[in-house]
């Protein structure tokens, strides 16, 4: 059980360090690579929690999809070797102050809920509820706890987003301008 705790500490340190580097580094391409490491660490956290399906989705959609999309758009719009201009000093100071105050406030609020402190996860990897077939059955069922309607709505949303991307990014002919 001690090993499991160490895995959590190492994973969370990895997530926080890579996330912090991804928002502070000056080279935009490195920022995208740090974001990739951070998202992989979050997928590792899901594995640690025993949610295997959501970890796989995290790797497939975030690491394999969104980060690759971001890297492509960096190549299309930037000179990736160049440094970004540093943020204004006063803005850095004030945003760091605001973030620290917000973090401390949230931590104080959370520490008042002593109910959360004693809770421990149930490590039951073979539980039938967590299997992929249970997830699929519940997602497509139309009974009380089914998610068929949100599933259909999000399919329409993805279709609309795809068409919108094509329409937005299509190259207009020069004589139209």
């Amino acid at each position, binding site marked *: 059980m001690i090993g*499991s705790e160490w895995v959590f500490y190492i994973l969370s340190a990895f997530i*926080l360090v890579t*996330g*912090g580097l*991804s*928002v*502070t580094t000056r080279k*935009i391409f490195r920022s995208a690579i740090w*974001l990739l490491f951070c998202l992989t660490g*979050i997928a590792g*956290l*899901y594995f640690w929690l025993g*949610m295997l*399906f*959501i970890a796989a*989705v*995290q790797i497939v*959609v*975030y690491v394999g*999809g*969104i980060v690759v*999309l*971001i890297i492509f*758009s*960096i190549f*299309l*719009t*930037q000179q990736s070797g160049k440094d*970004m201009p540093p*943020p204004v000093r006063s*803005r*850095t100071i004030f*945003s*760091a102050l*605001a*973030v*620290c105050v*917000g*973090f401390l406030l*949230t*931590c104080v609020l*959370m520490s008042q809920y002593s109910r*959360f*402190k004693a*809770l*421990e*996860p*149930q490590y039951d990897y073979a539980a039938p*509820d967590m299997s992929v077939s*249970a997830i699929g059955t519940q*997602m497509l069922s139309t009974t009380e*706890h089914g*998610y068929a309607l949100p599933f259909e709505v*999000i399919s329409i949303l*993805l279709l609309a*987003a*795809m068409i*919108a*991307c094509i329409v937005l*990014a299509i190259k207009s002919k020069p004589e139209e301008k």
Partner: protein
Amino acid sequence: MIPLNYILFLSTALFFIGMYGLFTRRNMITMLMSVELILNSVNINFVAFNKYLYPEKLEGLFFSLFIIAIAAAEAAVAIAIIINLYRNIRSIDVEAADEMKF
């Protein structure tokens, strides 16, 4: 064992790292990356609450799945807008996109 509090601290820290990036960055792609960090911290919360409070149910997992799907759609549309903006004004700095500013 790790109590639920520690996971909530982790996701809060990740959320505020994303907020810091959103405040300080002025490049649209890096701001989009900060938004992705914020969405991921929310996902961690949903999954952790599902695992710790209601381990026999799947609701938190479904919410995370839908958030991931919406984040993918949002990133795709945002990048299409950014590329279109770059074609028109040759910059993706938010300060440069001031044509509609009153």
